């Protein structure tokens, strides 16, 4: 229910010092309404800077950030309400937990919004469900949880604000495969249930392929590619040149095709390959 448009944004760290570093250069990108957009790029390609621009934590040196067509920097007093609408989960968010109980910590955002106790409580439960935080954990101290549980609690803390745009910087970094899958599918459920747009920053081409409708590829602070995952992964040579590559399974399918096993070239998941192979084998049996 909200669209964010970045128009020619640029940002430089430490301007005017010997440590000056360009993070983002003249970048234009639209985060489409209701879609899950993946942002992928190398370390230092400007991903984290970009997401901090989306909710006004960083003010671009040049360019505009438009939320539903309105410049978020037009009125600084409204910035706080922008942050409620664009929920940002930062990298390693488990280190931001602070309150006595998980419940109180998840309720921090809704409290800041000035919601009533009942409303807050309902949102905490809803967010805990999406993020996969078991209700039995809600009354524990966040410092007693395991790493993965902490991560979920932190994600729930942002979901509880019920943002129109949910932005997550490396939400699955450092988790085991099961943890990755459950947190990412929770995010997708949130998007489907609320109609929210989602932005996921990741290193993992596999995750991008499995969860994202749109993919933006960043390189050297600029937008190198943007499109549907079919469009992006079809450009595998260019991706290689940037040093990113395509999902491993897409590579395997491609190599198989070049060896004369016609799998088709729009395969991005293990399941996809399995189905295509099954079809081929059945075709041969006949």
């Amino acid at each position, binding site marked *: 229910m909200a669209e964010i448009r970045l128009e020619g944004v640029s940002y430089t760290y430490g301007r005017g010092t010997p440590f000056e570093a360009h993070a983002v250069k003249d970048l234009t990108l639209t985060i489409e309404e209701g879609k899950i957009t993946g942002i992928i790029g190398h370390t230092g390609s400007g991903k984290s800077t970009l997401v901090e621009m989306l909710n006004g934590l960083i003010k671009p040196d040049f360019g505009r950030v438009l939320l539903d067509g309105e410049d978020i920097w037009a009125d600084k007093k409204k910035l706080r309400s922008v942050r409620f609408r664009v929920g*940002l*989960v930062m990298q390693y968010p488990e280190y*931001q937990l602070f309150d006595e109980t998980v419940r109180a910590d998840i309720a*921090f955002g809704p409290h800041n919004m000035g919601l009533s106790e009942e409303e807050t409580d309902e949102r905490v439960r809803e967010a805990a469900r999406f993020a996969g935080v078991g209700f039995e954990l809600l009354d524990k101290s966040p410092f007693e949880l395991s790493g993965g549980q902490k991560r979920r609690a932190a994600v729930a803390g942002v979901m509880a604000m019920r943002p129109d745009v949910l932005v997550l910087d490396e939400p699955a970094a450092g988790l085991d495969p099961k943890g990755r899958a459950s947190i990412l599918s929770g995010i997708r459920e949130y998007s489907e249930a609320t109609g929210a747009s989602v932005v996921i920053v990741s290193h993992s081409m596999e995750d991008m392929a499995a969860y994202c409708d749109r993919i933006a590829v960043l390189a050297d602070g600029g937008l190198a590619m943007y499109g549907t995952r079919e469009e992006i992964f079809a450009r595998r040579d260019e991706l290689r040149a940037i040093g990113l590559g395509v999902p491993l399974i897409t590579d395997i399918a491609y190599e198989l095709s070049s060896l004369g096993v016609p799998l088709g070239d729009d395969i991005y998941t293990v399941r996809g390959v399995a189905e295509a192979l099954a079809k081929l084998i059945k075709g041969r049996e006949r």
Partner: protein
Amino acid sequence: MHDIALGQYFPGDSVMHRLDPRVKLVALIAFITVIFVVNSAASFLLLAVFTFALLLLSRIPLSVYARGMKPILFIIIFTTVINLLMTTGGRQLFSFGFIHIYEKGVINAVLVSVRLCFLMLGSGLFLTYTTSPLSLTDGLESLLSPLSKLRVPVHEFSMMMTIALRFIPTLVEETDKVMNAQKARGADFSSGGLISRAKALLPVMIPLFVSAFRRADELAVAMECRCYRGGEGRTRMKVLRCGRVDVVFLAVFALLAAAVVLVNVFFPLFAFKL
């Protein structure tokens, strides 16, 4: 937050950067002694010329030094005003209502301001801008090492200092991150009264303390894993060595300092009589 410049080391490869930190520490102590010993205008003029030459030698833009003077501007103004108003002695130069300004007050004010400026320039020139925090603590440890004979835990102190210096930027970065994370959840650090502002900092302070303890713990384990057990018998990768440059620098520096003091003794030209 990114503007916090603690330990304003300004990387470079000039003679001043390459000097042994011990030499720089000794030079700084001598420099400070000189600026507080001499009081003739001629000496200060000579000192200014030498200092300027050293500033150029450090190859750090002069604007950086100028910026470094900003923090002491207030102190200079403050002491100048106090000196002007409170010191009596010598001819009365000016009198209006309760304000009486005497000759000695003016002399004192100028002298203190000049000394403060030199102090600031000198510490920047010899230490803060040209010496990385690590080599600074190494130098300190080496200079203070005779004290360990008196059972002063010199190595431990310098290790603590090294670790503290090493983690200041990390903690600043982390503060920045946690603040941003809480801002993203609508935390408001800049409005409300004193109490509500202090309360608003809790969601930042708690995660910071927790992570500082976690880091300390991890660091301790990492150090033990590499068999750290204090300074005894420990060798270094970067051994401090007084090379020829250092010796030449010290000799030249000693000559210059002597010259400044001698000028003060024999040519008390425009000396501020106290």
